[in-house]
Structures are given as C-alpha cells and as structure tokens.
C-alpha cells in the first residue's frame, strides 16, 4: 500500500513538473513583455489557445507533429508582432493600464473568432505515435509525451537563456529592461526591441499551447483559467524576473499537482492561497526587487 501511494506520489510530482513547464513558458513570455515594456498582455491566454488550434490545423494538414510544433509557435509569434505593431504601439506614452485594457478586449475577440472557426466543442490532438505509450521510470510508468514536454520546455529555456545572456540582441534586451532611456540614448532603436520581444513572448505562449494540446485538447476557453494562474506565477516569482518566473512556475506546478492528489477540491484555490501567503511575507515576490517597474 505504502509502495503504491509512493509511486503514485512520484508520478504526481512528474505531472506537476509538466504543468509547471507550461506555467513557466507562459509566465516567461508575460514577464519578458512586462519587464521590458511594462505592458501586461491580457491576450496571452488567447495566444496560448491559438497555439493549440494552429497546431491542430498544421497536424491535420502536414501529418507531422514536428512541423506543427515548430510552425504553430512561429505563426503565433508573427501574430504577436502584428499585435505589437498595430495595437500596442499606438498606446505607448499613455497610462500602463491602456495596453492591459486593449489586450483584454482583444482576448474576447480572439476567443470568439476561434469559436466561430473551430466550433464550440473542443478538439483533440493526438501526440505522435513515437511519443505514445508510457516509459518505465523505475518506480512508475509515465506517459512518454509528458516527458517529451518536460524535455522541450527545458531545451527552450536553455535556448532562451543563451539568447539573452550570450548574444548582442539579448544584451540589449536586458539593458532595455533595466533602463530603456539609457539604451535609447546609446543609439539603439528601443521600439524594434519591444517589437521583437512581444513576438518572442507570443511565440512562447503559442508553444505552451501546442505542447498542452495533446494533454488537454484544444478549446476556445482553454486560455482563460491558465492566464490568470500565469499572472499569479508572475506575481509570486516577482514581476519582470525571469529566474523568478521559472522557479515560481515550477513551484506552483508542484503545489497544484500535489493538492490535486491530496485534496482535489482545493486544487483550483490553492494557487491563490499560495499567492496571498507570498504577498504577505514578500510583497515584491520571491525574486522581485522592491519598487521595480511599479
């Protein structure tokens, strides 16, 4: 009995890792965009949903999951570029509330358009055959596809870290989040960096969407709950802190997953209770600097 529950517990920890990975991808996009542009992208959840639907369309058209996995985030990223160029850019210089309000309206529009195109009933996405089945981890069997999700998330995070730390563009992005005025004074086009970063953030949301698709299916409202949870992840991690987004995403993934195991009724609430506790003890979040970007 003890063995069985221990194995089940371990499986639950892995499930939490998968969920945490999805949170991290979403929160990093939100946090990047926020850290650099002080814009909260309310449509992030809708972009996540589009990632799953684009993945579905690409998968049925090309038959290749790999093609869908690469192309869907790219398409969502391009859409993100368009959103920045035509909707967010006119709002720079206005209250930071305005982009939040605008992307809130945009998320209503995107969700409704998705409903019109793909219907009200959710679609299922099949993982590729090579990733079907389960792997023996020694203590439990775990779905191969979920391990794949953990792997892809880790790879993307390392890639993103290398991009931000080791490339010149990454350097300018980091500088821009510290002091945009100084970066501009040094002759860099801050507008182009913002444009790029919004695209990257949107692409990461799209990636999270297509990765989640085979586990949760694709449906128009799928982004709504998770975007609010991702907000919580960002707040807990510390706004604009990428390390914070990773740590807090994984932490909240575990908290949700383990609560689902021990007290399923509390699973939806525990995210917010965690947030309240962190806010009480450390108002700027786990890795946030007090007063930054307020």
């Amino acid at each position, binding site marked *: 009995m003890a063995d069985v529950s221990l194995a089940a517990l371990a499986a639950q920890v892995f499930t939490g890792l998968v969920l945490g990975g999805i949170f991290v991808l979403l929160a990093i996009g939100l946090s990047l965009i*926020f850290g650099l542009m*002080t814009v*909260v992208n309310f449509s992030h959840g809708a972009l996540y949903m589009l990632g799953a639907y684009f993945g579905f369309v690409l998968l049925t058209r090309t038959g290749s999951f790999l093609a869908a996995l690469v192309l869907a985030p790219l398409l969502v990223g391009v859409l993100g570029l368009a959103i920045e160029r035509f*909707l967010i850019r*006119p*709002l720079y210089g*206005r*209250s*930071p*509330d*305005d982009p*939040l*309000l*605008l992307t*809130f*309206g*945009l*998320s*209503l*529009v995107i*969700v*409704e*358009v998705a*409903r*019109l195109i793909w219907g009200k009933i959710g679609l299922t996405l099949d993982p590729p055959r090579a990733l079907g089945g389960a792997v023996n981890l020694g203590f439990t069997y775990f779905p191969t596809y979920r391990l794949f999700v953990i792997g892809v998330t880790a790879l993307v995070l390392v890639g993103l870290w290398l991009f931000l730390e080791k490339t010149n563009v990454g350097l300018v992005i980091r500088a821009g989040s510290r002091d945009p005025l100084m970066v501009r004074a040094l002759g860099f086009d801050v507008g182009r960096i913002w444009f790029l970063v919004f695209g990257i953030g949107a692409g990461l949301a799209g990636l999270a969407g297509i990765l989640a698709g085979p586990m949760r299916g694709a449906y128009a409202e799928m982004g*709504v*709950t998770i975007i*609010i949870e991702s*907000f*919580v992840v*960002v*707040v807990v991690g510390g*706004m604009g802190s990428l390390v914070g987004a990773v740590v807090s995403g994984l932490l909240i993934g575990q908290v949700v997953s383990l609560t689902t195991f021990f007290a399923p*009724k509390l699973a*939806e*609430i525990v*995210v*917010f*209770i965690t*947030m*309240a506790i962190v*806010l*009480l003890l450390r*108002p*700027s979040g786990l890795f946030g600097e007090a007063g930054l*970007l*307020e």
Partner: protein
Amino acid sequence: MNALAAWAGRHSVLCFFVVFAVFPWVVPYKALATQVLIYGLFALGFNLLYGYTGLLSFGSAAYWGLGAYGTGIALAKLKVTSLWLALGIGLGAALLGGAVVGFFCLRRRGIYFAMLTLAFAQLLYFSGFHLADWTGGDDGLRGITVPPAGLFGLHLSLDRSVAFYYFTLAVVGLAVAVLKRILDSPFGAVLQAIRENTDRAIACGYDIARIKHLSFVFYALFCGLAGALDALRLTVVPIESLHWSTSGQVVIMTLLGGAGTFFGPFVGAGAFLVLEDLISARTESWPLAIGLIFMAFVLFLPKGIWGTLIGGFHGR
C-alpha cells in the same frame, strides 16, 4: 452644451432623479431600465476606484457576487424577513471582502494591482463553486423571495416591475448622492490627487495607503449594493455573478461611458445593455462585437461617450 454640463455637474443628483424618473417610459421595456440602474451603480463603484483613484481592478465580480450572495443567502437560506436587513447582510459581505482583499492587493502598486484583484476574484469564484450547500454551486442560488419594503410603517410590495424599478431608483439614487458627497469632500479631492500624481500626494503628507484602502472599501460597497439589488431583480444568484466575465463587463461599461466622469458609468451601462440587446438578437457572436467596440474605444475614444460629450476629464 458646456453650460448645460456645468449646471448638470452642480445638480448632478437632481439630474439623476429627473432623468431616471422618466427613463422607463422612453425605453422599449421596463426590465431594461431596471438593469441600466443596477449595472450603472455597479459601474459607478468601479469608476470611483478606476476613474477617480486611478486603480484598475479586474476583480469587481467578487464584490458584486458577495453582495448578491449575501442578500440572496439571507433571504433564501436564513429566511430573513426584512428586506433592509437582507440588503445590509449583502453590503456587510461586500464590505468584509473589500477590506480583506484590498489589504492584500494594495500591497502592490500599478499594474500588479489589476492582476491581484483578478486573482482574488477567481479565488472567490472557485470557493462559491465548491460551497454548494450555501451558494447552490453550479445551479446558482435559488428560492429567493423578495419581501415587501417596509418604510415608516408602510409595506410596499415589489412584485410589480414598475414598483421594483422605483424602489431600485430610490436605492441607487441614494447611493449616487452618497458618491457625490464623497467626491465633493476633501477625501474625494485626495483620491483624484492620487490618480494625478501619487508621489506628490505622498509628499503632501497624505496617508496614501489608508486612503486607497478606504477607496477600495467604498468601491466594494457600491459594487456589493448593485449585486444585492440584482439578486432581488432576478430572485436567483447565478454562479456567473462571481465569474471574471462580470468583472470585465463593468470595465467595458465604464470605459464606454467615460471613466472619471460622474454620469459616464450610467451612460456606459445603458449603451452596453442596449447594444447587447440589439446585437444578440442578430448574432451569437456578441462578445466579438463588444470586444471590437471596446478596443476601438481604448484606441480612439479613451474618454468614452459621456467624457467626449462634455469634453471634461483632461487626460490622465
């Protein structure tokens, strides 16, 4: 127009009563008129926080829902026979919620605030969902009977829609008068100082944290009263009362009408409800339409309908 607006500004409560006394007789049906009053009050509360104090809340559903469930549970479960007591219990629930959540959310400034209010409203939504013994859960709270409104020994039955409309008008009008009093007080002036320049308001020596918290509590009370009235109007409290889409609705209404203007919320609520009525009759994609309209307002008409008409509210 400006002279008229200036006169209306001085006698806004009187204007409110005059306009809404005849309102149900000029709109196609009275049910819509009652809804405009209640949602207008909801938007009025949101506007106090956003339009006047400069704090954008995405969690108004929490206080609307607390008011609705508080009053609804008092009437349906606790079998309270006094209408005023039931309304008071709804207000008390909203007050408590506003005081507690405000304490947490106001620990962070700026854009954090919007996300935190949304998160706490979600917490309440899921709680309402699981406390089905009290809230009816997914099915909504049913079995609300509206007792007659006792006043100076008179018992006014609210069964007829006209009677309920004028009862609502009296309550909402009272709330409007209270809001007018709040905004005209030194406290109201400090609220607007916080909106215009928080740092300067701090430098002037005002206890910003306490004033913001008080403003949040007032906001919760107005939203709660609106929710409580809606529970009486529908005689049922749907779980959607606590849903984030309710919070979004009041944001849209207020910005359509004009944030930071006194009558904007009522204009916005009216415009929203009439549009919803017209568009829903023709297409199922009402959210698409209102989403596009709202985006156009944020981009091109940030002062809203009423704000643009009176040309006031000089930027933020």
